[in-house]
């Protein structure tokens, strides 16, 4: 199953690249630099999804003490952090030519950085706590708190005046993007979701193998 997921993700990423560079048009105002969006947006959406799984897995762990739920939450936190890091870094690269700066303490960028730091703390906490059961419990609480910040990150562009543009996809009134841009975005979202699932399955198996090796 892991191998099939891996090949599907590779095929999806290849299709995503073709869509981003050969199918999507050159954007009228920003020019070709807007093509960074086909990495930046899918990466953040998939990170939101991974943190959503952390939220559910953490609740399941605290409620039922299900170790499998904790392993899935831990894997999703790690993989979500990777995707969020890619989104922040590509956003910064996109910001330089369009906004004239690599970084600004804008509400969206600041709130997403807070989520990044919370999940970094989640992983550090797990690595630093000697008692694995206690580490899992503390991390589950932090994971829930971190995931609860995601609606705030999403709404930050609506609640405050920001340099970051408002949401173009997940917003009231529906999507206003033209299909020529929307379809490449959606293909890349699907490809990134497959890659995320592949990494999570691989990481969960590793956590199981590590537990067996320690037993």
């Amino acid at each position: 199953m892991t191998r099939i997921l891996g090949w599907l993700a590779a095929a999806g990423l290849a299709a995503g690249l073709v869509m981003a560079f050969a199918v999507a048009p050159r954007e009228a105002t920003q020019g070709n630099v807007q093509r960074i969006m086909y990495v930046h947006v899918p990466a953040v959406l998939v990170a939101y999804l991974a943190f959503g799984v952390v939220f559910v897995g953490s609740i399941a762990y605290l409620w039922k003490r299900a170790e499998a739920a904790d392993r899935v939450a831990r894997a999703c936190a790690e993989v979500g952090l990777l995707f969020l890091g890619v989104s922040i870094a590509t956003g910064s690269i996109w910001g330089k030519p369009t906004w004239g700066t690599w970084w600004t303490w804008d509400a969206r960028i600041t709130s997403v950085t807070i989520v990044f730091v919370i999940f970094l703390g989640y992983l550090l906490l797990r690595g630093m706590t000697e008692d694995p059961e206690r580490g899992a419990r503390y991390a589950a609480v932090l994971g829930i708190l971190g995931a609860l910040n995601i609606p705030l990150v999403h709404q930050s562009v609506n609640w405050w005046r920001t340099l970051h543009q408002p949401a173009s996809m997940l917003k009231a009134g529906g999507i206003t993007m033209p299909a020529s841009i929307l379809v490449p975005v959606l293909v890349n979202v699907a490809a990134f979701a497959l890659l995320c699932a592949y990494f999570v399955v691989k990481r969960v198996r590793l956590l199981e193998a590590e537990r067996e090796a320690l037993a």
Partner: protein
Amino acid sequence: MPDNWGFVIAAYLLAAAAFGLYWRRLCRRERALRAARAARPGAR
């Protein structure tokens, strides 16, 4: 506005490097665990 292809390439390379390095890390850890399991006494 100029196309800024350098920024586009940098963003895609950075994403590819991040995903590629993470994938390699997972594969290495898998191999190390498999080797440790095989080296354990009584392992077949």
